[in-house]
């Protein structure tokens, strides 16, 4: 095995259920390239090494370690692969996406390696003493830095938080030998890939978001949110109350227990602005709110608020935008 630079940063690349490189890879490699030499690790289905390595190289991975496996075990194969990669690369940090799968892999790996873990970082840097993880907590009300007292730091990176991108690299991959730990694991019995039928931008990382709340009143009327989103080329989001009421699936929830967004523009329609919702959106550059209650807390963070009925204000806004396009 070849030598790895002393400043190596091991990046776990995620793949989608369809075997494509996940969008989180670009931010992870971008972040890694700012603090050291990225070395990527991809755990893929048999026969996909070449394809994933090519996508990874285009995204900035100069070296890719690939593990091909058809295992239907949850989490553990990735942790075993990470342990094997960390043993050969001896990285200063391991960067993993703060996705549901990423958190599990990071948690199990950190416990196995007895390494400190920094979760939901919005960035990383390096100082004289090593790697520092930057966090934005309590809905962006505080900035906090964390670091390891010594040794390897495992970091999960918030999706869409890192703008830095690494330059494309020539394709260079090698397969990594992994001996299975035999650690107990859950089995994946079936996978149903979500086929994105929508041409709308993805919520996470979107530059514009239009969200609707309970104020929309029904699933049918929630279409108004989608209509405005389409007029603006924006992603659609929702409050938990809108999700609970069945207007829209849970994956659209913005907030503390949903997706955190930081777009250029966030439009909140019929959303009261409970702290749990604001936590996920108040770092947006511009916030517009429409709510018929003048005392709704959403107005405390809105740059432009309209006290009014969404069913009169929004259609007017949509036609004003259409007018302008003509």
């Amino acid at each position, binding site marked *: 095995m070849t030598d790895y630079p002393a400043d190596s940063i091991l990046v776990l690349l995620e793949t989608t259920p369809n075997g494509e490189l996940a969008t989180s890879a670009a931010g992870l490699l971008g972040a890694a390239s700012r603090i050291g030499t990225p070395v990527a690790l991809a755990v893929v289905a048999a026969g996909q090494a070449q394809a994933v390595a090519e996508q990874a190289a285009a995204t900035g991975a100069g070296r890719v370690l690939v593990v091909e496996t058809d295992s239907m075990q949850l989490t553990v194969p990735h942790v075993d692969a990470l342990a094997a990669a960390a043993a050969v690369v001896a990285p200063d940090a391991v960067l993993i996406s703060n996705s549901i799968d990423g*958190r599990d892999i990071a948690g199990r790996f950190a*416990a196995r390696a007895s390494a400190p*873990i920094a979760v939901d970082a919005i960035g990383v840097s390096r100082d004289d003493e090593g790697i520092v993880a930057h966090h934005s907590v309590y809905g962006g009300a505080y*900035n906090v830095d964390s670091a390891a007292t010594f040794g390897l730091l495992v970091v999960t990176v918030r999706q869409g938080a890192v703008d830095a991108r690494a330059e494309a690299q020539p394709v260079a991959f090698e397969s990594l030998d992994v001996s299975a730990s035999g650690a107990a694991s859950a089995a*994946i019995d079936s996978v149903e890939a979500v086929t994105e039928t929508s041409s709308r931008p993805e919520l996470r990382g979107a530059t514009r978001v239009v969200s609707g709340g309970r104020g929309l009143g029904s699933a049918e009327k929630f279409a108004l949110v989608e209509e405005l989103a389409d007029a603006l080329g924006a992603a659609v989001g929702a409050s938990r109350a809108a999700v609970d009421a069945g207007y829209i699936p849970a994956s659209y929830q913005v907030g503390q227990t949903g997706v955190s967004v930081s777009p250029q523009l966030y439009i909140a329609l019929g959303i009261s602005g409970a702290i749990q919702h604001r936590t996920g959106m108040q770092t947006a550059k511009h916030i517009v709110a*429409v709510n018929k209650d003048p005392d709704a807390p959403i107005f405390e963070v809105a*740059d432009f608020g*309209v006290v009014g009925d969404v069913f009169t204000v929004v259609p007017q806004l949509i036609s004003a935008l259409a007018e302008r396009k003509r």
Partner: protein
Amino acid sequence: MKIIVLVKEVPDTYGERKLDLETGLADRAASEAVLDEIGERALEVALAYADSHDDAEVVVMSMAAERAAATIRKGLAMGAASAVHITDPGLAGADLGLTARTLAAAIRRTGFDLVITGNLSTDGGGGVIPAMLAELLDVPNATALSSVEIAAGTVSGTRSVDGGTLHVSAQLPAVVSITEALPDARFPNFKGIMAAKKKPFETLAAADLGIEPNDLSVAMSIMTAIAEKPPRAAGVKITDGGDGGTRIAEFLIENRLV
């Protein structure tokens, strides 16, 4: 079947949450403390199973400051058979590694077939504790479940991840975490509150679990800086006088957002 439910006391998010700028820890005095809603839902999963299975025993467990005892007791009032409270001044400000090692030691000591946790705690938790526990206990992890079926010897459920929905299953013993898609918890009734007073409530210190909180030979995560950001200021608020939509369009144009 012994089910341990991990619950946590968190600052009530309906109020304002503050971090102490000296210590970097949650300023518990600044807001009221409550049982984390996601932990209550986890407890509901266990209690619903126990409702129809006489052999099920539900234990609530928490690692928290001494004053959290009253909040943990709510779990007993809701129907758990016993509680384990790990509290120790040395554990204040524990990083995720120390938290996981301590909880794992307590879980092992209590004995378990199934551990149920929330997927993410409300107080800015990282959502990694369940997986860390699974590794330390050498059992499967099945996390972020939006439905759970507990059967003799197995647990299974569905889990929505980016790009797809999985059905997963694991042999017991196992650690699972659940999402807020699962039902809201029951309220403790008067009978439950009275019964709770007589239920076993065990209080453990780090030393009881063989945990040395200040072991500097173990690498830890430390907070190196903390800063409060100025709160966002409210902007313009108008009352719709028939031109609200047009005014928003103007705002968007002025700010080059369209």
